[in-house]
């Protein structure tokens, strides 16, 4: 923390106390307040999803199915996947961090469509409610992938309610993407050219493209599943000559790009963190910016890698395999660029940076195993085993969740104007890192040994690895719980942070913390790049007043 913080004062009027009362929150159009609404609700869904994960891990402690019945187990991992993917990881970075800082970063007073932004949150809550209803009724047991014909004809669980939930939630995601795209195109402050945009903006822009072009396809696919179940349409029904593999195409056409919805904004966070905590601009800014777009675009052409053993044509598999390899290259570029950003930098060990460095290591492992999975001859052995489970937790938890926590710890003082206890936050970062590896590394091994995923009981020889994994999960759980305590504590008792506790550049650090409702007294004029640490010059000019940088 820079010394600036010590003398800072808490502003009297800011977005949190601008208006009072619960309605002023529920009807707010302020992007910052909507971000807080998301923060609360997304965290709740994460806890619920985490609870399901704990059930799964506990059941798997022993080879026999002793804690849960098979039906409960299947519901537990399905609800875990559905909640975590659709209600936690997809919205977490864009809807919380993106909503909060995106407009400020580009010098705007709000997103282009504040009402639609609020509508997004309501759709999210509506979708969530349907899913919770399904859960309360007894849950769903189709897996988060809803494969037909199991989901359409054979499952006796609350598929319809969940499908409606996911469908509605999809539109929340679409509207967020729409808002971001229009905002980035139309609301940039004067002088904020495309190549002066912080990389977080580039990443969110790329994400939004995926949200717009991909989400509707999964929406219609899930809708057709629902209609097949309820009204008896027969589009995927093999008994009537339908092809269940067609559903997989439609599902993965979205759901592969969706993994980039989950990771691109996280990558944007990492770009910001590496620059701020190395006090230096990101190595190869343009390459990183273009990589985001490349990932978003190429990411649409690889979905078939989930279907190598599905009965898809072998020739199509070959095409998807090589394209998957290609999409890994921009990610590789980014990892190297981030690492070398530290070169000749001024590297601090603040909590957000610890998370960022954790991300680099874990995402590398997750990504490399992803490329392994893309290798045809290899995937036929490990497909639908714990190897895949380990891969995606490495990228999703080790990657995105780490980045999210880093971003949260980075912007927390901006959001609430107060610092959290540094010591505890570092402890939690370490616990997460250690617990995470202990949980998921053994799954690579047990996966290669042949343990299939979605197994409620398993042969004895796999037990040792499952015990390690369950042990790790409990450490991980503690690591994730800690922040909720000290962050809440800091709201009231934390040290006042001041406008720029990290000595960072970027428009959001020129506003008071917490920022006023309108963000800026007047729209700033931007005269420099996003990470001009070295020049030490003032790069933003507010009308009449100058903002300080560094």
């Amino acid at each position, binding site marked *: 923390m820079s010394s600036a913080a010590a003398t800072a004062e808490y502003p009297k009027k800011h977005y949190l106390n601008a208006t009072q009362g619960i309605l002023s929150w529920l009807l707010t159009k302020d992007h910052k307040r909507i971000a807080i609404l998301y923060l609360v609700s997304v965290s709740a869904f994460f806890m619920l999803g985490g609870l399901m994960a704990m059930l799964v891990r506990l059941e798997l402690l022993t080879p026999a199915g002793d804690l849960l019945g098979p039906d409960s187990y299947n519901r537990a991992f399905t609800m875990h996947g559905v909640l975590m993917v659709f209600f936690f990881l997809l919205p977490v970075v864009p809807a919380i961090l993106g909503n909060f800082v995106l407009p400020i970063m580009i010098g705007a007073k709000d997103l282009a469509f504040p009402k639609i932004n609020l509508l997004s949150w309501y759709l999210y809550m509506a979708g969530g409610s349907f899913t919770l209803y399904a859960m309360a009724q007894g849950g769903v047991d189709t897996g988060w992938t809803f494969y037909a014909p199991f989901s359409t004809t054979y499952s006796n669980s609350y598929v319809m309610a969940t499908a409606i939930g996911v469908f509605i939630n999809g539109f929340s995601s679409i509207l967020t993407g729409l808002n971001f795209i229009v905002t980035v195109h139309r609301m940039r402050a004067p002088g904020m050219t495309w190549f002066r945009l912080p990389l977080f903006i580039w990443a969110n822009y790329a994400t939004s493209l995926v949200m717009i072009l991909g989400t509707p396809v999964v929406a219609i696919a899930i809708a057709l599943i629902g209609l097949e179940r309820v009204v008896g349409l027969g*589009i995927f029904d093999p008994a009537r000559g339908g092809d269940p593999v067609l559903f997989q195409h439609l599902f993965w056409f979205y759901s592969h790009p969706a993994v980039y919805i989950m990771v691109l904004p996280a990558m944007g966070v990492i770009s910001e963190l590496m620059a701020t905590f190395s006090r230096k601009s990101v190595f190869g800014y343009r390459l990183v910016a273009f990589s985001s777009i490349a990932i978003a675009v190429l990411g649409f052409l690889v979905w078939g890698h989930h279907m190598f053993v599905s009965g898809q044509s072998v020739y199509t598999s070959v095409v998807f395999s090589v394209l998957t390899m290609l999409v890994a290259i921009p990610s590789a570029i980014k990892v190297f660029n981030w690492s070398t950003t530290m070169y000749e930098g001024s590297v601090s060990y603040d909590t957000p940076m610890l998370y960022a460095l954790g991300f680099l290591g874990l995402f590398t492992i997750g990504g490399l195993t992803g490329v392994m999975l893309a290798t045809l001859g290899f995937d036929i052995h490990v497909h639908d085993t714990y190897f895949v489970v380990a891969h995606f937790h490495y990228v999703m938890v080790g990657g995105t969740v780490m980045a999210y926590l880093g971003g949260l710890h980075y912007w927390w003082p901006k959001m609430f104007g107060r610092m959290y206890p540094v010591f505890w936050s570092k402890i939690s970062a370490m616990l997460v890192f250690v617990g995470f590896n202990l949980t998921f590394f053994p799954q690579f091994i047990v996966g290669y040994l042949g343990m299939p995923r979605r197994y409620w009981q398993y042969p004895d020889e796999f037990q040792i690895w499952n015990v390690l994994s369950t042990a790790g999960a409990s450490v991980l759980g503690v690591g994730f719980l800690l922040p909720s305590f000290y962050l809440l504590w800091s709201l009231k008792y934390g040290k006042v942070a001041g406008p720029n506790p990290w000595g960072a550049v970027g428009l959001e650090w020129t506003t008071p913390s917490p920022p006023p409702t309108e963000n800026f007294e007047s729209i700033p004029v931007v005269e420099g790049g996003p990470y001009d640490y070295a020049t030490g010059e003032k790069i933003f000019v507010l009308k009449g007043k100058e903002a300080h940088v560094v």
Partner: protein
Amino acid sequence: MSDVAHPGLAHHFESYEQQRQSASLGMWVFLAQEIMFFGGMFLAYMVYRSRYPLAFIAGSHHLDIGLGAFNTAVLIGSSLTMALGVRAAQLGRRKAVVLFLILTLILGSIFLVVKYFEYSEKWDHHLIPGKHFHFEGEGKFAEVPQGPMQIFFSLYFAMTGFHALHMIVGVILILYMLRPAWQGKYTPENHNYVEGFGLYWHFVDIVWIFLFPLLYLIGRH
């Protein structure tokens, strides 16, 4: 255009031009999303039509080409009235806006009513996919298997159903716009809403422009 005190200017925009541009980009991005939404069904159509050509021909023969063509004309007509409505708003002609919105509303409703009769005819002939489905083919279609026939009709209902749903939403939105239109709220400076809605309505028309030949006109010779 000056940015002081424009009647329709929202607080977070700097100028009305910025707001207008945002609205139109936003609407187009929304339509991009719609294209992909219907695209999923068109893809399913493509897969099954190439797989079961005969069933698709048989199914198509069971659709009423007259009603289909009539509805196509009605929708194109409604697109015309909608376009003229937007034009009236651009020029600030209050009564013309109202008139064209009402005409569009009427045409849209006619389309839906015709659709209703088509659907109920399918119901009477047991062509609703599901347990009671039974297709009586004649002549060269006598032997077309029931499964693929069900797939044809599933696609028919899914595609026209989601299309009709969009029409219904459109009709509701017109009803919602009538009052401000009557009050003269849509002016040369402030007609984003009508214009955005127009885009939506035309898009729905385009979907039908594809649905009509793909469903009604297969193998008619």
